[in-house]
């Protein structure tokens, strides 16, 4: 079990620490943006949408921080494989948040256009002057663009280096944030000039690329949870590392089956003989009796295949005896 928790290379450790710090900064800046947006939202539906979507963008950084805390915990009796897959689960959560944000934005924009919803924006008193709230929304939206642009750009190369799809999804989320911020500025400016459809149209156009990013990430996340072949950090293609692992372990040679899967940022490979079950039907039945069909794979440590197999065999023998007794016992009662 210990070899599943090797210490990470110093550079990777440092990068993960840096990524965690970045995510804390993201949470901080998002909080200031959400606060500022809340102040200028007023009763405007357009700003309310932007605000809800800023709240949704808190999800990926939170999940990243949570996953980074949990994933290196040692295995326990209830989690004998450790917690590496928490990364996969958090990635799925982050991808869903991105997809939900895109879908929400698209739905709001379409329904506003179809029902010809004319956004109404009133005024607010500042220093004794009555000012149209739109003029305050524009600088607030401009402020909301700055942090996501910078943070997103810092996250992308980092995400590739530490192979972190949560972080990469968060960079996509930051892109979505600043795109919607810009669209919002255009939309409010359009409304100022009397084009009621400007805000919904801009939001609708932007939402398409967000839905696309969210859909791609969700597909990869589902593949990862289903033990699919590892995917690249930024696309649905199979990861080059996975292909190198498969080739290096003799995949492609006749009679050898190499399967690689991904749990969070880590990879696991299984090398088996292609034409043989990892455990005989007889042994499986001896262990599980009528539930033998549930045991479909047994992996044995490569270091001590002989010893392990021998141990398994002797276990099978004892199990066979006690198993028979148990069955007899059940029958008696």
């Amino acid at each position: 079990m210990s070899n599943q928790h090797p210490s990470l290379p110093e550079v990777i450790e440092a990068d993960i620490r840096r990524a965690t710090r970045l995510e804390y900064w993201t949470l901080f800046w998002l909080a200031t943006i959400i606060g500022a947006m809340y102040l200028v939202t007023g009763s405007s539906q357009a700003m309310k949408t932007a605000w809800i979507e800023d709240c949704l963008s808190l999800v990926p950084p939170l999940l990243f921080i949570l996953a980074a805390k949990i994933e290196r915990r040692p295995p326990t009796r209830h989690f004998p494989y450790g917690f590496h897959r928490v990364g996969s689960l958090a990635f799925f959560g982050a991808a869903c948040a991105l997809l939900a944000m895109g879908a929400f934005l698209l739905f709001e924009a379409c329904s506003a256009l179809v029902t010809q919803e004319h956004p109404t924006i009133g005024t607010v008193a500042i220093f004794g002057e009555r000012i149209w709230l739109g003029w305050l929304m524009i600088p607030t939206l401009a402020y909301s663009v700055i942090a996501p642009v910078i943070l997103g750009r810092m996250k992308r190369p980092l995400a590739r280096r530490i192979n972190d799809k949560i972080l990469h999804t968060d960079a996509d989320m930051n892109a979505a944030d600043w795109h919607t911020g810009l669209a919002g500025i255009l939309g409010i400016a359009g409304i100022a000039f009397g084009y009621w459809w400007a805000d919904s149209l801009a939001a609708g156009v932007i939402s398409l690329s967000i839905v696309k990013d969210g859909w791609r990430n969700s597909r990869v996340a589902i593949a990862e949870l289903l033990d699919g072949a590892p995917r690249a950090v930024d696309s649905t293609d199979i990861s080059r590392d996975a292909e190198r692992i498969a080739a290096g372990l003799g995949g492609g040679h006749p009679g050898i089956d190499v399967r690689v899967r991904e749990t969070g940022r880590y990879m696991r490979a299984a090398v088996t003989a292609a034409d043989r079950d990892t455990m005989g039907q007889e042994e499986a039945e001896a262990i599980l009796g009528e539930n033998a069909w549930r045991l479909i794979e047994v992996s044995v440590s490569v270091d001590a295949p002989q010893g392990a197999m021998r141990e398994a065999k002797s276990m099978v023998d004892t199990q066979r005896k006690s198993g028979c007794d148990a069955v007899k016992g059940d029958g008696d009662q």
Partner: protein
Amino acid sequence: MRTPLCLLLSLILSLSGCSLPKDPESTSERVQGGTLRIGLLSQRMDATDQAALDAVAEAFSASPDIVDGSVHQLISMLEKGEIDIAIGGIPADTPFGEQVGLSRSYGTVAIGDEERMRVLAVRKGENGFLTRIEKVLPEHE
């Protein structure tokens, strides 16, 4: 940091001075120097609403014209732009808030045992009209 902030503030103030925001359906232009068509939702116009209406009519140099009808008829007319304003003890949390645009409050109104913020309603999205109205509505603490 100080300079761009000043520039931004002066830009905002100068923009709010000119004719933006505009109305998608040009309510301001139609009312200016013409008739202000008013839907009265209450039985009688009280002093608070009368003061608000006088201020708006004066700002647009318009002569007020009170249109009769039931509440639902008047709201529907406002949605279509057949009247310009609906007024008469409207609370800020009116159930018609989805169909019409509501102004800032210029007083309170008693609904049951509760005091609510009193607002008036304009056609949705007529932001230029609403902005000018809100600038002249009586202030209240």
